[in-house]
Structures are given as structure tokens and as C-alpha cells.
């Protein structure tokens, strides 16, 4: 019997998700035994052409990480969609936009201007910017893919069958997702694979240290406090997003006394992750006086970066609409 064909692709990604696959360690050999990898730009020498030559629907599953930011990403994911039975959004960026998605708070022009002219480490007196087409010699013109107006999560570009959460997904979650897919016993389309159906608090080793009422008098950033690793971090004033974040990661950050930043994303019923996070966090600030509440919540210097760190492009907000941009 022919082995199932698998493709792996990265869009706007830091490469962490690729590492995560490699982190399967010896299990990667089991995977290779079970499937044929037909496309994996980061590790194997296949070309786009090779994918184009495959019959439509012949790839069993494509694992795509990173958000869609370039015209090239858009082109390849559409191609993979056509060639694949299943498309899996692998990792937070692909599922909801991830950290690169925070760039949706700026226009394309603002991003280019900062990156090529204004960033403190840039030395560019001629104000050169990359061009879509550059003539190198008489006969040779080099092309670069264009930057899309904003970063899109995968499911705003193509239909997505399943999601694997995490920044990056842990080896455990990745393996469970693969097992589910290989089992043939597929959950309903749109499901999240490999993770829990409860929030991180359920898995959290500190859950039982919570007082009757979780209320806070102050907000602290991780570097401002020597957190007690044996006590619920939220009750210590850290912006732990455990309550609103899907479990399944094994509470790795918590075990290192770092608050959850939410990379496993929302539970099924939640429409807007950041909205839910702000809603619960704001309501546990234990003051009746509005000014006091403002003072405490004002200590969260970057609310978008805290509450929408992984999910801005997939949220109801999407990003900032820049009217001036043509």
C-alpha cells in the first residue's frame, strides 16, 4: 500500500515550528517510516514545480506554519490546498497570526519605513528599499514577492481542516496530532488537534493554590517581581493568561515560574481570545474606585502585545485600519 504523502511549509514564521517537528527526536523516524514527505523547503530539496506536478488531492495532509504575509505565501498555500486532502494550520501564527500578526497594528508603509530607514540599527543613507523587480544584467531581472497589506491567518486565505496550537506546538502535541490523523478516526472539521478541551488552569500544578476568590491589587511584569513558583502566578499580579488559554502544553512556562502568554489560543466557545482575556483580567482588579482600577490596569504598558500576542489577525479587531494607505 502506498504511504500517505505529507507536505510541510512555512509562511511568515520564525522557524520555531520547523524546529518543533525536528524536536520529535527519534519519533521523527517513525513518522518518516509511516509517510512520504513530498515537500519541506526547510529540510529537503523539493521545488514548487514538484508540488505542481502532483495530481490534485494527492497529498494526504499539508502542515503549514506561519501567517500569510507575502504574495508567495498566498500562492503556495493555495497550491497546497488544491493538492491536499487535509490542510493543517500548524502553530499559533498559522492558526491566528501569531507574533508577526502584531504588525497589523501598522501599515505596510510604516513597517517598510521603520525596517529600512528608522530602526536604530539601520544604516541606509540612500534610503534604498527592496524592489519587486531588479534588473541585474541586461537579460537578468530578479523578482521578490510582494508584502501583502496585512498578515492573514491561514484560514482567511484557504479552507483549513484542523489546527495544531502552540508557539511552537510541543513535541507531545505534535505527536498526538499526527496520531489522530493517522488513526483515520478524524474529529469534526475545524477541530484543534493534540491539545486539551479545557483551559490551562485545569492542567496547572498551581491550580489548588488559588484562594477562594482570585482578585488582585496590583499588576506586575515578570521582571518586576521574584515570583513564588509554588503559588498561582495570577494571584501574584502577573498577567497569566492560563484561564483563557487552551491546555495541553503541560504548563511548561508555569513550571518555570513564567506566566502563560496564551500561545495555545482560545477554547472552542470563545470568539475573540483577546477580548475574553481583557474581560476576565479587568474584572479581577480588586478596587471599587475607577481611578484606582485605571492606575493598576495602566501598568499593562502594551495591552495588545499582552492580550492579543498570538491572535490579533484572527480577532474581531483584525488590526488597525490605516485609512491613508492606498
Amino acid at each position, binding site marked *: 500500500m502506498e504511504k500517505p504523502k505529507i507536505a510541510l511549509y512555512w509562511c511568515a514564521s520564525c522557524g520555531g515550528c520547523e524546529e518543533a517537528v525536528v524536536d520529535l527526536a527519534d519519533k521523527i523516524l517513525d513518522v518518516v517510516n509511516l509517510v512520504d514527505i513530498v515537500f519541506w523547503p526547510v529540510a529537503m530539496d523539493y521545488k514548487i514545480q514538484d508540488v505542481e506536478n502532483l495530481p490534485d488531492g494527492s497529498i494526504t495532509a499539508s502542515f503549514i506554519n506561519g501567517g500569510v504575509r507575502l504574495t508567495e505565501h498566498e500562492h503556495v498555500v493555495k497550491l497546497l490546498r488544491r493538492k491536499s486532502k487535509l490542510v493543517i494550520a500548524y502553530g499559533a501564527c498559522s492558526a491566528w497570526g501569531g507574533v508577526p500578526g502584531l504588525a497589523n497594528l501598522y501599515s505596510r508603509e510604516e513597517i517598510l519605513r521603520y525596517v529600512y530607514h528608522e530602526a536604530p540599527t539601520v544604516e541606509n543613507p540612500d534610503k534604498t528599499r527592496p524592489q519587486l523587480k531588479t534588473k541585474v544584467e541586461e537579460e537578468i531581472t530578479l523578482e521578490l514577492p510582494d508584502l501583502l497589506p496585512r498578515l492573514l491567518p491561514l484560514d482567511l486565505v484557504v479552507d483549513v481542516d484542523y489546527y495544531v496550537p502552540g508557539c511552537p506546538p510541543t513535541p507531545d502535541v505534535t505527536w498526538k496530532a499526527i496520531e489522530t490523523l493517522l488513526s483515520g478516526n478524524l474529529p469534526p472539521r475545524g477541530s484543534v488537534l493534540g491539545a486539551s*478541551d*479545557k*483551559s*490551562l*488552569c*485545569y492542567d496547572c500544578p498551581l*491550580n*489548588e493554590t*488559588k*484562594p*477562594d*476568590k*482570585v*482578585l488582585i491589587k496590583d499588576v506586575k511584569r515578570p521582571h518586576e517581581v521574584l515570583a513564588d513558583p509554588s503559588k498561582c502566578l495570577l494571584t501574584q499580579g502577573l498577567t497569566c493568561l*492560563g*484561564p*483563557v488559554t487552551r*491546555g495541553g502544553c503541560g504548563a511548561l512556562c508555569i513550571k518555570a515560574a513564567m506566566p502563560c502568554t496564551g500561545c495555545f489560543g*482560545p*477554547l*472552542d*466557545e*470563545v470568539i475573540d481570545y483577546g477580548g*475574553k*482575556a481583557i*474581560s*476576565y483580567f479587568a*474584572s*479581577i482588579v*480588586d478596587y471599587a474606585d475607577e481611578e484606582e482600577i485605571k492606575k493598576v490596569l495602566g501598568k499593562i504598558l502594551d495591552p495588545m502585545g499582552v492580550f492579543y500576542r498570538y491572535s490579533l489577525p484572527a480577532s474581531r479587531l483584525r488590526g488597525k485600519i490605516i485609512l491613508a494607505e492606498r
Partner: protein
Amino acid sequence: MNEEPRIGVYICHCGVNIAGSVNIKEVVEYVKNLPHVVEVRDYIFMCSAPGQEIIKEGVKKYNLNRIVVAACSPTMHEHTFRNVLIEAGLNPYLLEIANIREHCSWVHSESREAATWKAYTLIRVAVAKASLLEPLKDITFKVNKNVLIVGGGVAGLSAARELALKGFKVYLIERRPVLGGNTARLGRIAHTELKGKDVVGELLKQVVDNPNINIYVNTEIIDVSGSVGNFKIRVVRQPRHVNEKCNLCGECVRVCPVEVSNEYEFGLTKRKAIYLPYLGAYPPLYVIDHENCTRCLECVKVCPRNAVNLAEKPEEIELNVGAVILAAGHEPYEPLIGEFGYGVSSRVLTLFQLERMLDEESPTKGELKINGIQPKSIVFIMCVGSLNITPNAYPYCSRMCCSSTIKNALVIKERYPETNIYILHKDIRTYSRGDEQLYLRAGERLIRFARYREAPNVLVNPDGSIDVRFFEETIQEEVSISADLVVLSVGMKPPKDIDRIRTIVKVGCGPEGFLREAHLKLRPVEAATDGVYLAGTVTGPKNIVEAIDSGSAAASKALTLLVKEEAIVEPLVAVVDDERCSACSICVGICPYNAIRIKTYEDRRIAEVDPAVCKGCGACVASCPTGVMQQFGFKDAQLKSQVLAALYK
């Protein structure tokens, strides 16, 4: 409920209330095409018996399983139509009301087109939700037969008396160290030979010896949890520092070095830090005002019966009751310093101060003397603090001041017939039985009435004499009266800690701060919160008779609850999906009613809502970070369907 929704929509004309601005015919045609709608009918009064019959017939004929009534506000008739569903054999919670009267026809009467369009939308939204409604079961629980009464004035005493006579246990708490409220400080009550404290005394006779009544003075309510039929109350009793061994010998008062203004004489005299509020006060014991006591221990040393104990601490007491009666009373309006010369001249008194002075037990033994001289010309200014006469006055009429002023004027005229008395008023409202005769008699005794529109000016001259100037409405002339004494007929205002109490008990208030009834006309002694009743001046100014009446009325309303074995609450409460709750505990801290606890079942921690305590406010649902907390009747899916139906056709 997995069956296909079969919705009947019943559209009410409400006479011309709705039909006058909504095109019912067009609405009927429109609604027929909405999803799952099987029958649409309209009728002139859907709440009437024939209207209700139309719904019942429809259910039978078309096998309907959801009902939408497009009519008035659900506060008006939701109950009526739920009963119709029960009679039709449906679960009462399969009803959705589209409010096309208050939210539509009444507010858009200027445009028939706009009102009709809005009726489309409101009904479309209601139909969308109706198709997702689930049958729910009422929550029932045993009714606790005890009652808490907050306030020991005449209204609270009257309520306590009624309930105890019926055999119910009453906890009567009073913030002050003495029962009787404001009435106890009043002088002779019109048309009777009784003084205020005699009226209180009569009520006390029927209250203090009744074993069903537990009296806690110096006690304030600090927390309420639970709900109708099942309240858990926490109160804190401040120490009296004097126990029952006290026989009122008075030695302690003699040695006490602290003197403060005596609030029971409206500041006319001083009292010590250890004192008896007034002669005949109940409980008949001295009390130490611990705010002013210097802990010099002189009273402890001198007390022959060892009745004084300064080491007593505040005590927290928990009470379980089925109903709460709020009879927290009022305060007299206190004029600002300088307002009509008050606090500036010793010749300006409030009506209450005058009434104390005229009492035989007063410091002057009932003699009316200002600085040792009997006033020959007295000017009463009415409505001080009421009817917006000054910028800081309240807008309402305090109801008792007209009669009270005339009564006191007549007492003065009786004792000092030569006195010239002027009553400056905006209006005379002697509405109680017999009070109009007092007014006529005042005229016969040559008490002069004059009418002002703008508040009179009280000019205190350098020699201490006073001129009162105002524009007289009837003769249309500027008038100046030279007065030896000016009496300010002050009104009533809400007691100072009413906001604290109402926040604890969860009762609303009107713009002036008095507590608000469930319905001004139809339910005057009930609060909107089930199981909470209102008595006396806590809902607004009343005279003594009215306050006692309302105490009895509140008791009688409470009895209708207490005689039941079981109370029912709507099942529109929050509920946790046990399987998927992560025990993050966010909801526990947010619940304003303490209805949620984290419970452990076989090593699994989950949040649990006590449906008897939950009020269905939805705060936990909104804050639940994972969406597993939902509210019956307002589930996310139901609300989302409404939003979508509102936005898209």
C-alpha cells in the same frame, strides 16, 4: 429539545397603543416568512381572555412548540403569557416576548414607517432566539420562616408586631442604641393627647415582651447573601458597654467628664458620653457613646452594680431569614449654616427644636424662651429643604411639615395668646384627616398666613434682631416682618447610610435617594428584589399614621411569602459545563452574590453555581475565560442568534 421548532407569533394591537403607529397588517405578512414560523395571529388585546385563547388554540391546532408574543414590555405581561403556555401544555420558558410597545410604538409614534420597520426587526430577533429556547424547570426551595426588620422606628415596630402576632420569628435591628426612631423625639401628636414617645411606647408594649421578637440595638446590617425565602444576613452589634444590671441610678452620668451635643434634643442641650437617650427609652439602660468616650473609667469606678464594661467588643451575628423588611427611616433636613440665619442667630430654630422646647420634659420645662426672653413675634418659614425652595433643597413635599407647623403654632398661641405668629408658606397641604380643621382654627386664632414664591430673606441685624423679607403673592407687595424667633419647618431626607444599606440588600433608589418600590401604585411596599419589603419613610416622606400603616402592609406582604412552604425562583441562572470547567476561579471572585464556589469531586475541581443564590446577572458568563459558564435563557448561542438576526435579515 431536538424537535424542529414550530413557532407561533402572536401580535398585540394593545388597542391603539401599538396599532396606532405600527402597521400590524404588514407586520403579520412579514413575520409569516420568517424561519420556523408556523402561525401568525394578531388581536386587539393579546393579554385578554380571548387573546390568551387564541394562543392556546394555535398551540393545539398547529402543534406549536415555541411562542413569540409581540406586545408590551415583559415586565408587564411575561408572567401572564408564561401561564398561557402552561395551560396550553408547554413549558413556560419556551416563550419569547418582542417588546413592540415601550421599545417601538411609543417611542416612534412620529413615524409609522419607522415603527413598522422596527417591529419587523424586534420580532425577527425574538423569533431567532425562540427557535433556540429550551424548556427549563423552576427552582424551588424551602422558605425560612424568620424575618429581618431593619429599623426600629414606628414602621419597623408596627411590622414586627404584626409578624410576631402571626407567630413568625422576627429579628429587629436598630442602628441607634434605642428603639423608636424619629417619632420618639416628637412632641404632642396632633388630635391626640399622646407625645411621640408615647406612640412609640404603645407599640413597644406589644413588641418587647413578645418572645417571637429578638431586638438588636446598636446593630447594623453588613452583608446579605442568598435570595427570596433563604437569605443569610450578617449584622454587627456595637457594644453598649452597659449591661442589664443597670438600674438607671445616674451615678455614671454625674461623673462622666465628656459633654457632647444631645441629638435627642436636636442639639438644644448637651449630654454626657454615658447617657440615657430619653426618658422612657427602650432598652431602659444607659449606653456609652464609644466615639466620644475617653476611656477615663470614672463610670466604671462609680457604678454600684458593676454594670459598665468598657472591654466589650463589636459582635458579628449571622441570621437566616426568609424575608427582609427595610424600615430604615429618614433624617430631618438639616439647614446649612447661614441658610435662613440657621446656626448664625440663636433666634433661628428648626421646627423640631421648637417642638422639643415646647415639651414639658425639655430643658426649659416647656417654656418658650430664647436667651431668657419670651418671643413676641414668631415667623415660621415652611418648606425649608423641600420643594426646591433653595438650591440644595429637595424637590418633593415632605408632607408632614404643614400640619406640624400649624399644630405647634396653635400650642404657642394657647400658651402665649399675645404672641404674633406668621406662617410663610408656598402652599398649605393639610391633607390628613382633621388637619384642615387645624388650619381653619389657626386662622380663627389670628395666626397669619402669608404666601411667598421666592424663598424669604432672613436678615440678622447687628443688634441681634431679625427681619424677614419676602414678596407676598396675594397682596403682591414686598413685606418685612420683624421677628423675635424664626422657625424653619424642615422636611425629611433619606438617612445618611441608606446607600450602604441598599447596596447590601440590592434595592434601587429614586433620584432623591429614597428607596424605590417594585411599582409605585401597585406594589408600594415591595422592593424589586424578591423577598425584600419596604416600610415607612425609607420610600419617601410620610406622617406617623402612614408609616405605621406601611409597616403593617409590608408585614402582610411578607406573610404572603412566609406562609408558603416553598419559594420559586426563575431558573434563568448561570450553569457550568461540569465536563469542561477548568476551575480557573475567575467567576468566584466576580460573582456579586457569592453564588459560586470551587468544589472538588473525585480529585476534579470545578466551579459550582448555587441556583438558589444566583440572581442571573450574567457577570460570570461574560467573564468566563473559556465560555463554559452559560446562563439559562441567555446562552451565548441564543444571544448570538439575536445579534445576527438584528444585523442581517
